[in-house]
């Protein structure tokens, strides 16, 4: 097991954002987390990547208890992530942004290597033309791609993507999924993608999914089985989700 | 006077002065709580209040208690001017910008005061009867200061609880986007909160003069900036009420330690209490950066 999340709980004041959630992720797995807005997905990521400490429960990465480890000590172990609202280093160039990932993530590259790694992943996500632009000037979509490249440059073993496909058209989504499958196979990265509404994207990408609802884990299992479960459909607009169906995602905001 | 009498009378003094410290810090906490701006120029506004009390008393014979109202008005005006000329342009700017800007504003006010009023130490004495507490005699003026601080703090509390505008401020603190959606003009709330914070600070400057009879000078504020930060951090930085309580605690700590330091031969206790203020700050930040009396994370 690459990641074991055991019974983690996180409260904000009176609100229980994540309520004793447990799940496991295998090495190189494609895992999906779905759940409506406010169901605790981002908070879960924040606890895995070390932004927040859970109030209770344990997080075990590669056999090691990392619950009390600060965020900066987790990245070198191989945990990379993107942010729901992209957080580039705005006045640095895209190339420098991605290079930072290579320098301080699991890659621990020196400056020269980091630039090479950076160029590789910038090319991979298709941002070569923007490489020398200040990251703050990118479009929201480009920022997402830049964050993906930056996370990949860390050479993670676990990649946590927070709504990375939101706002993309079906063609872009197709490309991203293809890219993710490629890095997953070539670099043995376990990829966790979390989405609010892009169900058909998840059906194409994930082998297993977990459904979150109001801070709790509602269900977990093989993607199609879970997404067609009565309880899940109830949570999501009452719509039945067909494999690969375009436009099956709800457009609530 | 024996040591215990000395200590007791200093502690009483500490409570009285602490109420003014509390009031002086409420403005700082209010501004930080609403705008997330640390007013590094805090003490300069307090100094303006001290001068207001001095001039109103020496020129017109106005009692400091009456001067509070003038000080509040001056403070509101100063606050609005500062907000609309500088602070408004820095909303959303990096934290460094607001730190440097408020620092510059504070310095500017001090230098202006020096230019206009000169660098001398000034003071006035408001003759009020003394009340004997058995151990020592306390001037009524200091008791008025305590009462005035409590009344102002209470009025502010009621204003937040009961008025529409006060509730709007609280709404902005809790959820800025939500407040905007509800039709609250966030910039105006910012302006009002900033001005109110400055007004409280200027008013506390009036009351401070009842404790430092000859200490009014353009640079007197620096000391209170430091103390206000200690108190604000003690009280949780974002909460005006936390700040008010913490003011009493700090007043007691300061005057208690002054008495104790007096026991050590060959030191100047007065200078050392200021060193203690700064080390207390570091220690509190070390133990619990978000404030000892609760308060939220930044």
């Amino acid at each position, binding site marked *: 097991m690459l990641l074991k999340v055991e019974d983690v709980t996180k409260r904000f004041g009176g609100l229980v954002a994540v309520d004793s959630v447990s799940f496991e992720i295998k090495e190189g797995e494609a895992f999906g987390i779905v759940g409506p807005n406010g169901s605790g997905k981002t908070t879960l990521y924040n606890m895995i990547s*070390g*932004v927040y400490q859970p109030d209770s429960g344990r997080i075990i990465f590669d056999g090691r208890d990392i619950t009390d480890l*600060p*965020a*900066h*000590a987790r*990245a*070198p172990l191989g945990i990379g*992530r993107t*942010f729901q609202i992209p957080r*580039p*280093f*705005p006045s*640095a160039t895209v190339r420098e942004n991605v290079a*930072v990932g290579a*320098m*301080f*993530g699991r890659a621990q590259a020196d*400056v020269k290597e980091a630039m090479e790694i950076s160029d590789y992943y910038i090319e991979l996500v298709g941002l070569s033309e923007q490489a020398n632009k200040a990251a703050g000037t990118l479009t929201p979509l480009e920022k997402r791609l830049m964050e993906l490249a930056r996370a990949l440059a*860390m050479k993670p073993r676990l990649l946590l993507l927070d709504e990375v496909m939101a706002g993309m058209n079906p063609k872009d989504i197709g490309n991203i999924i293809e890219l993710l499958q490629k890095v997953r196979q070539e670099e043995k990265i376990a990829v966790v993608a979390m989405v609010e509404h892009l169900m058909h994207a998840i059906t194409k990408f994930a082998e297993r999914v977990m459904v979150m609802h109001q801070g709790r884990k509602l269900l977990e299992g093989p993607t199609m089985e879970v997404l067609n479960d009565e309880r899940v459909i109830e949570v999501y607009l009452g719509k039945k989700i067909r494999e690969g169906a375009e436009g099956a995602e709800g457009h609530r905001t | 006077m024996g040591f215990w009498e000395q200590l007791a009378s200093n502690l009483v003094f500490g409570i009285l002065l602490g109420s003014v410290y509390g009031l002086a810090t409420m403005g700082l906490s209010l501004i930080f709580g609403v705008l997330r701006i*640390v007013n*590094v120029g805090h003490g300069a506004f307090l100094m303006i209040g001290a001068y207001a009390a001095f001039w109103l008393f020496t020129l017109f014979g106005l009692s400091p208690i009456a001067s509070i109202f003038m000080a509040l008005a001056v403070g509101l005006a100063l606050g609005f001017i500062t907000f609309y000329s*500088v602070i408004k342009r*820095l909303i959303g*700017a990096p*934290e*460094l*910008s607001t*730190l*440097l*800007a408020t*620092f*510059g504003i504070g*310095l*500017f006010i001090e*230098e202006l005061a*020096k*230019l206009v009023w000169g660098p001398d130490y000034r003071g006035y004495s408001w003759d009020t009867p003394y009340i004997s507490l058995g151990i020592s005699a306390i001037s009524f003026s200091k008791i008025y200061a305590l009462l005035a601080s409590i009344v102002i703090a209470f009025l502010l509390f009621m204003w937040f609880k009961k008025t529409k505008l006060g509730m709007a401020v609280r709404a902005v603190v809790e959820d800025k986007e939500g407040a905007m959606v509800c039709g609250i003009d966030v910039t105006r709330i910012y302006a009002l909160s900033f001005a109110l914070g400055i007004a409280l600070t200027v008013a506390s400057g009036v009351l401070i003069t009842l404790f430092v009879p000859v200490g009014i000078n353009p640079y007197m504020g*620096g*000391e209170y*900036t*430091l103390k206000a*930060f200690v108190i*604000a*951090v003690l009280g949780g930085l974002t909460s005006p009420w936390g700040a008010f309580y913490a003011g009493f605690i700090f007043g007691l700590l300061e005057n208690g330690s002054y008495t104790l330091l007096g026991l050590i031969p060959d*030191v*100047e*206790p007065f*200078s*050392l209490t*200021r*060193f203690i*203020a*700064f080390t207390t*700050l*570091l220690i509190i*930040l*070390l133990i619990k*950066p978000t404030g000892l009396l609760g308060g939220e994370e*930044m």
Partner: protein
Amino acid sequence: MRGVHTLLIIYAILLIVGLTVPGMWQPVAFLMFYVALGQAFNIFLGLTGYVDFGYVAFLALGSYGMAIAMDSLYQTGLGAAILPIGLLLAALMSIMLSLAVGAVALRLRGAYFAIATIGVNEGFRYLIEGARLWGGSEGIIITGAMRKIFGREMANFISTMVADVLVFGIGLLAALTTYVIIHKRMGYALMAIREDEDAARVMGINVTKYKIMAFITSAFFAGLIGASAWTLKMTYVFPSDVFLITYTVEAIVIVMLGGAGTLLGPVVGGITYGLLKYYLSVILPGFQLLILAPLLVAIVVAFPEGIVGYLKERVRGTRFEGYIL
């Protein structure tokens, strides 16, 4: 490397003007103090985006370090070796203070850090005066000690010439250090911290470590400047002089005016500020802060990128890119 060339050319011009044009050494030394002060402070404020309102305490402790070394060692017969010992002690004392303050406050966010630093200079001054440390409010006078160590002639030469050359060298060293830092992993880490501290953490950057490293480096140079520009030059240290907040303000203005985090910023800012101050002290003696304070506010509001930051943007993509760093 071209950015360093520009830097070295400016330094060379200053040095040549100072040494060859009669009567220009003192004015150049006057400017060099501000350039060095800016260079030292830039390593912290410019590279981390954090502000230390008590920065002058590092210069002050440095100047005490030198004075203590002179005052307590002049009878030992160590002779001229006392000078480097003094510099060492100066650096050591500033570094100790930066460790004490940094270890507590740099674990915290920007505003809390700034709050924690606001009383450092005053607090220290009151400790020295209150506990009668190091001569208390009377300070330390080393005019006699210096004469005994170096002889009258040499002591004179040290205050009028060597002290300035030292400041010049320290400023240059600080600039070169900045250059090296910017191009190493540390520079990228500090950039990330400055831009988004949370994101930097998640990228694996130990933000506290890098902030403290920048803080210590900056304090180290500040201590050396205090030891040379104040103690060696004036031959005395008074607490009421060396803890003056004015120097912190000057350091901030120089860095912001020139362009925070740029290599050339402190040079441009220091020279501009020095000239401005010189003329202001002629026109409005005693009221420099009256001009300086609104200037700082104006820069922050209207021109936050500073002169070099502005030029850097303008030359991006032209053949001058790289000369302005």
